[in-house]
């Protein structure tokens, strides 16, 4: 009943089990990292250091080093926070949603998507932390037994929900990711040529054996952890959206925000997955594992989500008019569609709702360069979406005498570049030291989806 065979061959090249192991672990066993890896790692480290310097300036001098003002109190930091969290949604969305709908093509990509999640959420978590200004008082956010009453946190505040949701999301994603890697580390423990590698991966493999009962417990636990993380994908970004929608600022105070943010997050996450897997496939020649069919499937999902995004944008405009609130109408029509922030608004609309519609054409879906460029557009578009939401609403609210424009300073930009460095460096380390594709999951789907000759002949071209 669940054997949907519309996807064609998942793993190409009639691989044997040992060939799968060999192919995927080859980059990890390589004695030296490739030159492009070293160069990228160097650039990422420089970016990370720039970010660290900017954070140092922020903390030692204060938030005054940013371009924020009385009106626009949330700037690049919050934009980047929401952007990174959005990107961080892909891993779990991939692993869990596609697991639930029994999409077996996920197996080649989910490990990379989950790794991306971890690093993106780490980058995201940095922003609220430094945005507090007095980072040394950061522990105030936790409900601990204090000498001021004890005065507890405001448990009705979306900002508190946010902290809870994001730390939970990071923990749950990390544990889920790690559980999936245990059997793959055991392979390295048993097979690696170097003693040091055997030892290190032996420690990481937790003494995994791969006996029947072990696999039963492993799969049950992984499924349960995944099943619990699935509602988290929805809840995290809903809660992030409540940071905005619970306020009374025009453009933020709308009920569409939770679903709109969740969809946007999955959209940007899948966009980043596409960017990353195309790079990974190209550099490590994983074409047999991440086939054109995989990229095609992601592109189709993106087309659909892009339509939802477009609908959400139109709904917002409609509601601004239909609500009869002049402030809402002003924010949308005079400060987004037209006005000072026109560029950001139309970039957002073009990149998110219009350009991905090119995926309707099979020719474009098959052209990997085009797919890659569109995925970059999606990443940019989603950044501008957050820019539009955060900045336009704040810069011109109820009192015209209080209107102010916002421009980021070099420090803010540097912090953003720093998180990009953190993300890239994390992904590079993942490329080098972790099996990039879930070996045991690929082996699980290998026989039934790739080496059955009758199926391969009959179905590979029928989509």
């Amino acid at each position, binding site marked *: 009943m669940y054997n949907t065979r519309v996807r064609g061959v998942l793993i190409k090249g009639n691989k*044997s*089990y*040992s060939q799968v*192991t060999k192919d995927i672990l080859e980059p990890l066993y390589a004695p030296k990292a490739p030159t492009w890896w070293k160069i990228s790692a160097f650039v990422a480290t420089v970016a990370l250091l720039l970010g660290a310097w900017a954070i140092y300036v922020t903390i030692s001098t204060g938030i005054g080093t940013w371009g924020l003002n009385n009106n626009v109190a949330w700037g690049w930091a919050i934009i980047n926070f929401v952007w990174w969290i959005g990107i961080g949604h892909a891993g779990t969305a991939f692993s869990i949603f596609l697991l639930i709908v029994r999409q077996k093509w996920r197996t080649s990509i989910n490990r990379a998507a989950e790794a991306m999640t971890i690093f993106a959420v780490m980058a995201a978590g940095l922003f609220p932390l430094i945005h507090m200004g007095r980072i040394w008082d950061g522990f105030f956010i936790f*409900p601990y037994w204090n000498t001021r*009453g*004890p*005065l*507890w946190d*405001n*448990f*009705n*505040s979306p900002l*508190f*929900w946010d902290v*809870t*949701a994001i730390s*939970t999301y990071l*923990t*749950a994603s990390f*544990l889920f990711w790690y*559980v999936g890697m*245990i*059997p793959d580390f*055991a*392979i390295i*423990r*048993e*097979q690696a040529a170097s003693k040091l590698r055997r030892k290190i991966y*032996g*420690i*990481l493999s*937790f*003494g995994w*054996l*791969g*006996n*029947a*009962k*072990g*696999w*039963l*417990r*492993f*799969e*049950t*636990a992984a499924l*349960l*952890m995944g099943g*619990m*993380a699935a*509602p*988290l994908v929805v*809840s995290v970004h809903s809660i992030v959206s409540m940071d905005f929608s619970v306020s009374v600022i025009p453009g933020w105070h709308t009920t569409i925000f939770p679903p709109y943010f969740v969809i946007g997050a999955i959209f940007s996450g899948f966009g980043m997955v596409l960017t990353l897997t195309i790079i990974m496939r190209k550099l490590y020649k994983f074409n047999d594992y991440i086939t054109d069919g995989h990229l095609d499937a992601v592109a189709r999902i993106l087309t659909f989500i892009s339509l939802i995004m477009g609908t959400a944008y139109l709904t917002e405009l409609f509601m601004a008019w239909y609500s009869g609130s002049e402030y809402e109408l002003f924010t949308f029509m005079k400060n987004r569609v037209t006005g000072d922030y026109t560029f950001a608004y139309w970039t957002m609309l073009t990149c998110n709702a219009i350009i991905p519609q090119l995926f309707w054409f099979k020719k474009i879906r098959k052209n990997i360069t085009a797919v890659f460029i569109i995925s970059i557009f999606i990443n940019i578009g989603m950044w501008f979406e957050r820019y539009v939401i955060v900045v336009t609403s704040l810069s011109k609210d109820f009192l015209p005498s209080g209107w102010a424009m916002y421009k980021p300073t070099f420090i803010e930009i540097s912090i953003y570049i720093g998180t990009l460095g953190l993300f890239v460096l994390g992904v590079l380390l993942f490329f080098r030291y972790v099996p990039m594709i879930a*070996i*045991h*999951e690929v*082996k*699980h789907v290998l*026989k039934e989806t790739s080496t059955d000759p009758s199926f391969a002949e009959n179905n590979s071209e029928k989509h």
Partner: protein
Amino acid sequence: MNRTKILGIYEDHEVLLEALDKVQSKGFKVKDVFSPFPIHEVWEKLDLHTRIPYATFIYGASGTAMTFAFLYWSSVVNYPLKFGGKPLNTLSFVIIMFVLTILVGTIMTFLTLLWRQRLYPGRKVEMPDPRTVDDKFALVIEKTDDLDDKKMEELNTLLKETGAIEIKESNVQYYEK
């Protein structure tokens, strides 16, 4: 007690499943199966079950209860303070309860997996046949006392007939439960 084990090594999981059927139908007790990936049919054939789902439910439910107890106690009993005209015991507690249910459930399920399977960082293990992590499948039969020479002979032929590429004995001890 750990006894000597007889290992039938197979190269394909479908061949292994057929072999498993045949060996069981001849009255031999298959102790375990080693494989590079989970095979659901093996669990049915070896009659293996896990209670982790029940445990997870209990973890989640207690996570919900404990979170609510803490929120109620801190906001209503210990330091009642009105925020924004909302009642002290508010519906919005649901959000934190929901998230912490998942947090507690996930962490505890992870720890339960490690505990039940005796997995921990740095645990040293020896595998009966290390190739089973890669591309081989091993059928494990315990060498019990009633396996006399005649029965051993029968078992060996049976394993060969069912497609085992290799039959070996192993004294490696591992955690079996």
